[in-house]
């Protein structure tokens, strides 16, 4: 009985091994993935972001539907701004501090697209709806808190519990892209956008900090 069990087990293993032979399927949907770098045009600096869109071209490739994400934070954004604490608040004996901004935006992008110049160029008009989470954070040695409490707890206390906030994002734009490699379906493009944020409010940035133009550079990989 044991011999038969072992034989059946080994046979099953061989069958599983052979069952993987399968032909590739032809894609029915035009998928794309687009890594993106962008600059948020503030009055005194450029906020640098990294992000992506992933989605499909539908309606005979006249419409792009995608999930998008972009965010700014960390060493790619060295800009700091000095902020005074609310009255009576101090941190390591200081009444103010240098902070940096961080930000993440995600949501859905809808973009009608039009071929130009005999198909060598493509114009698309992205309209995005989503959410942002954004705030301001302590940097450098200020992140070593004096009492062992978390940096996040200190940031809450220093900025009236409004170091960061969530809000809704509406964004419209215009993008132009051209094919880099027809054989492998790689395109490169540039875009201008205007972002409008609703319901976002922080101690440092107020409500208007992210109502701004944005310039994007992107690659688009698709089938």
């Amino acid at each position, binding site marked *: 009985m044991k011999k038969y069990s072992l034989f059946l087990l080994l046979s099953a*293993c061989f069958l599983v*091994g052979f069952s993987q032979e399968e032909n590739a399927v032809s*894609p029915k949907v035009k998928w794309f993935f687009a890594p993106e770098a962008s600059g948020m045009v503030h009055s005194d600096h450029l906020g640098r972001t990294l992000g992506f869109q*992933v989605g499909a071209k539908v309606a005979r490739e006249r419409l792009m539907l995608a999930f998008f994400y972009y965010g700014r934070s960390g060493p790619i954004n060295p800009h700091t701004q000095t902020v005074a604490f609310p009255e009576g608040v101090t941190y390591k004996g200081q009444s103010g501090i240098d902070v940096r901004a961080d930000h*993440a935006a995600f949501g859905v992008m809808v973009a009608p697209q039009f071929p130009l110049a005999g198909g060598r160029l493509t114009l698309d008009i992205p309209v995005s709806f989503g959410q942002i989470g954004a705030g301001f954070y302590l940097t450098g040695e200020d992140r070593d808190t004096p009492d062992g409490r*978390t940096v996040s707890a200190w940031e809450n206390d220093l900025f009236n519990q409004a170091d960061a906030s969530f809000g809704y994002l509406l964004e419209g734009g215009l993008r132009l892209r051209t094919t880099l490699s027809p054989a492998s379906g790689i395109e490169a493009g540039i875009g201008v956008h205007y972002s409008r944020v609703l319901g976002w409010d922080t101690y440092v940035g107020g409500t208007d900090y992210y109502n701004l133009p944005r310039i994007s550079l992107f690659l688009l990989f698709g089938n």
Partner: protein
Amino acid sequence: MRHLAVFIACFLAWAANAQVMVDLQTGTSKSDYSFGTLGLSWQATDAWRFGVSLQNSDYRYRFIDARKVSNGYAGTYSLLAAGRIAENDVFRFDFFFKPGIRIMSSPDEDPEKPFLYDFKPSTALVLDPGFLVTMKYWNRLWLHTGINLHTVAQIKPTALLEQYPSSFLMAGASYQAGKHWTILAQAMAGPASGAGGDTEKFFWQTSVGLRYTLKGNTTASLLSGY
């Protein structure tokens, strides 16, 4: 012992006829001095791949209970499921999902900077969903790009969401060095979003790897990144 021998015999019989891949990878990152990964994956069909991996890190910094700690060790044990979304002669588009458990030692205390907090070893759930694009660049050379939406939830010492889904862009290449061998190189970088935790706000990682495919290489076995 006999059961183990039967299991090993069965596994070897299966592996000899299945598209099984063994991966060795090493690299460095913003948070790790070095890390090494051993992976075993099975290309079940042209479209689907499943696997397991173990990664050990000699960390530069990590976070326990949202407080930064330095110089310790971490191990991450992961499962993998990956599936093809689209493919043509030069382009392949896959998604992947790599859930895992990260176990982290408590660090040594720095005599110049004594801890103000009693650190305990940490356990966390790591979720790595993402997408991978693969393009044929040359006969044996494939280029890759994609996204890893890295997410971490600490379970112990206290439960907290350490990192929101963060968007790490990936770029890499794989070179088919022989019938069974593939050389892989990859870089990954992006903003890291803290939640109840802390993240140092940005992450980067570079790695090189070697893949041995038991039954010989196919398009699917050239995919790097997972």
